[in-house]
């Protein structure tokens, strides 16, 4: 019932957001476009573009973490990230950047503990060769769960754009969540 006016609001916000973002992009091209073609391979280009976009930070790492507003809480502490049992900084290195501690890490931790317990129980209960194989496979599955959760966390804790970009991207999110609701909640199909 209440979906239609909300969708209209979102679409109106989307159209204004697109216009605003176009203006913003034009301004950016006028301001820092010279640097793009001149020195694509120079670090100073990055600084020029960053300063032309009036960012608060020039360094890459702080731009990753400083202005991120995401579903994850921003309270970061290394001691919480060590709860996973290994330090991701030394493990995958540059691929996975320092991340934030959140509830989802606890979920990953308990899923991992459960899968490892399942593997050890299977190793004890079943016969030896099959138990060893199952132990290996469930440990690999636990590793996969941890890696996928950390990957999602790294992606979701990135910066999700300026306010104009959010005006464009939020209706897309709304449409995607509407599709998922129709597909998985199904009140509109048969209900």
């Amino acid at each position, binding site marked *: 019932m209440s979906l239609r006016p909300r969708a209209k609001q979102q679409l109106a916000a989307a159209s204004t957001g697109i216009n605003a973002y176009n203006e913003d992009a034009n301004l950016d091209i006028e301001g820092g476009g010279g640097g793009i073609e001149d020195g694509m391979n120079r670090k100073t280009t990055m600084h020029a573009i960053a300063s032309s976009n009036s960012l608060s930070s020039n360094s890459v790492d702080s731009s990753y973490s400083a202005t991120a507003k995401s579903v994850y809480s921003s309270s970061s502490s290394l001691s919480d990230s060590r709860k996973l049992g290994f330090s991701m900084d030394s493990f995958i290195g540059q691929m996975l950047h320092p991340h934030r501690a959140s509830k989802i890490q606890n979920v990953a931790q308990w899923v991992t503990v459960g899968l490892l317990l399942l593997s050890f129980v299977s190793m004890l209960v079943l016969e030896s060769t099959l138990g060893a194989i199952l132990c290996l496979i469930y440990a690999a599955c636990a590793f996969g769960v941890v890696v996928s959760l950390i990957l999602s966390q790294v992606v979701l804790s990135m910066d999700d754009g300026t306010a104009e970009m*959010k005006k*464009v991207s939020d209706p897309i999110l709304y449409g995607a969540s509407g599709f998922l609701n129709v597909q998985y909640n199904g009140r509109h199909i048969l209900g």
Partner: protein
Amino acid sequence: MNAKKNMLNKLAIMKFALPLAFLIFVSYQFRPENNSNSTNGSGAGKLSNGLLGFIVALGFTFGALCSAFSGYLAMWVAARSNVRVTSAARKSGYHRALVACFQGGAFSAVLNLTLCIGGVVTFYTLLLVCLVSDDEASLVRTSDLPMLCVGFGFGASFVGTL
């Protein structure tokens, strides 16, 4: 007031998957019983119709659950990683944008592989514990089990296609 009805209304895919699993179970009941030539028949073929249909329907449901879970989470993350890739390209250039793009895709890939391997191995182990014994008289041998796991792939690709 109707929480139970809401629970039943959830999962539109389940509304398609559960009747289809029941249809699979029913369709196995029309299979002709060929227990007469039991000397050279395959092991899985000697199971009764009801048990065989139940195994395939159970695998179908389990595969549909795994595929629905991975599909939901992959789309949830992928819809949010678009604007983050854009923002990284705007701020930090090609390298960070490509890394963000790769991480957003690698999430769904790792999750799909994990659920695929974990689901198949769990279902195989369930069948192995329930059906196979070391006796010579046991109907199902270990080499017959992959034919019984076919319902898992059917259910997973059903939800993936829908």
